[in-house]
């Protein structure tokens, strides 16, 4: 008797079990449970956008026992869809969830897919602070004072920064706060602009990234201030010596960079020699590793110490990232030109236009 031919059955079954996220269901089958304190601003605009591009992100619904669907996330989208009189909407199906699990999903998703809930929250808090004061507001929202004050600040943010939240581009108050700080700090405006541009390009912006920028700008501000104060202190003593250091300093910097280049190569040789010596001495594996590792730290830690703490972390992080996909030699050649580590074309490369860490 012939063996069963099951290949098309296997295929057909694979497709049948898929929980298809692109499923569209009749909009009238979706029940929306009324939510507390909801202000829906901008539904008309969202409806316009849906009219043009359709709904880009599926709504999340829960399959109910009665065969209908209960909306978990996407109230703005469904309102806009109803405004546009759409017959069906794309959904992601969930089933068998408890009330608590549904709520957890709503809380988790709200910030990501329903931008104005963050805005609602922030304006709601601001209103409550105005009406009742921060202490009462904390009670109303059942939150600690820090949570309230974080949101209180939003109203004072630059309009560009507020816009980021209103358009649903960024709902992270920490990031928005940092960007606002950059705008306020001298020298930070350019950084603020570049971060905002990243958002507009849909690129990700991390909290730490912006925080580092703030730290850097503030550190820079401080050193400038200190330098100025220092210079001011000696202003009356050596008026002419202020003009000279400018050109002299440039030469010094250039010379220093060249020296550092040589130092780097020297260090490379020294590490190579160290490895050769370990082999000669036939040290056990861990011993050899230890010697290399401790030498590595001996050389690098003083350098990291000389840089600020935030710099140390971000430099190492960036290097760690780059070394994942490119070899040290490749990175070096990118930086200095030439063919390999020994033959740098330019020992003091200039900053490329628009470069940022």
């Amino acid at each position: 008797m012939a063996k069963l031919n099951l290949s098309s059955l296997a295929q057909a079954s694979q497709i049948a079990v898929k929980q298809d996220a692109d499923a569209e269901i009749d909009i009238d089958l979706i029940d929306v449970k009324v939510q507390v304190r909801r202000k829906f601003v901008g539904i008309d605009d969202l409806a316009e956008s849906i009219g043009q591009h359709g709904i880009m992100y599926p709504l999340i619904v829960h399959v109910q026992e009665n065969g209908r669907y209960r909306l978990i996330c996407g109230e703005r989208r469904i309102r806009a869809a109803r405004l546009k009189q759409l017959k069906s909407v794309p959904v992601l199906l969930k089933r068998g969830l408890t009330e608590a699990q549904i709520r957890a999903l709503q809380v988790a998703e709200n910030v990501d897919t329903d931008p104005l809930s963050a805005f609602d929250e922030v304006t709601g808090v601001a209103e409550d602070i105005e009406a009742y004061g921060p202490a009462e507001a904390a009670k109303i929202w059942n939150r600690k004072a820090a949570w309230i004050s974080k949101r209180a600040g939003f109203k004072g943010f630059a309009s560009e920064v507020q816009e980021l939240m209103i358009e649903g581009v960024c709902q992270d108050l920490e990031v928005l706060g940092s960007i606002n700080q950059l705008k306020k700090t001298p020298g930070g405006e350019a950084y603020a602009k570049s971060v905002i541009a990243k958002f507009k390009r849909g690129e990700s912006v991390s909290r730490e990234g912006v925080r580092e920028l703030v730290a850097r700008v503030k550190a820079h501000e401080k050193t400038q201030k200190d330098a100025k104060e220092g210079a001011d202190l000696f202003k009356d003593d050596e008026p002419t010596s202020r003009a000279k250091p400018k050109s002299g300093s440039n030469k010094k910097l250039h010379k220093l960079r060249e020296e550092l280049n040589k130092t780097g190569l020297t260090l490379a040789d020294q590490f190579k020699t160290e490895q050769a010596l370990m082999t000669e001495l036939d040290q056990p594996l861990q011993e050899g590793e230890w010697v290399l590792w401790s030498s590595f730290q001996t050389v690098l830690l003083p350098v990291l110490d000389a840089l600020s703490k935030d710099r140390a972390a971000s430099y190492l992080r960036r290097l760690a990232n780059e070394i994942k996909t490119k070899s040290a030699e490749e990175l070096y050649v990118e930086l200095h030109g030439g063919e390999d580590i020994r033959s740098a074309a330019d020992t003091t490369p200039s900053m490329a236009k628009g470069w940022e860490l």
Partner: protein
Amino acid sequence: MKTIAIANQKGGVGKTTLARNLSFYAIEKKLRILCLDFDPQKNFTKTLRNFRARNNLSGDGLAGVSIASELFNEKTKQLIPLDCGKGASLIASERGLVDVGELHLDALMHPRTALASIASQYDVCIIDTAPTLGKPLYAALIASDFVVCPCDVDQDATDGLTDLFDDISRVKQMGWNPGLTPLGVVVTKVNSRRAHDMQGIEDLREALGDLIFKNVLFERAATKVAKDRAVWQSTKGESHLAAAREMKAVCKEIFAKAGV
């Protein structure tokens, strides 16, 4: 109410047998069960009617109750299933089901809506379907949460299954019932002495993985003969006992997977 359709486009694979035993299993578990017969052959209906008679319920149970074809009629205001006793109710199959084929496609959605109106009264609904691709089968797929597919180790049966899975996919992708979940395939009528059958089970497991239920139904006289009662009722003899064990195991597995 969790709705489970029993389906396979090939006849004689054991759909009604499974529907019957699942219903008895539910009754014994004291669940409120709605039996829906979408097969014009009316075998499922007969079993439930006889059950009703044994429960000494009055009347012939034909007047004033809803029948299967009414589910397709949007004018049907209220659904009144036939009470068969011990928590079981029936919406019987009758000739009208044949005419359902003439109805407009829209009618296919009505059974789902109609069942929704009484969903709160039951824990589980079992739909026995006809071995033909037709409007009642589609309507059953649209109305159900789950589909269980009995299938014997036979090329025609597995080919029929392929078509059924295609239909399930269509029902989902067209948005008629995107939540429809194939619960799995119950291998039936297995002859343990035939190498072909035993190999077939292995091949099915390999092809469908988790979609094949762990428990299979072997070909046994007891399974075939028990039309009006559960296979496990009044067992006589070893083969009967085995049949009883197997059927109970399958029912348990189905309900467990469906979360009933």
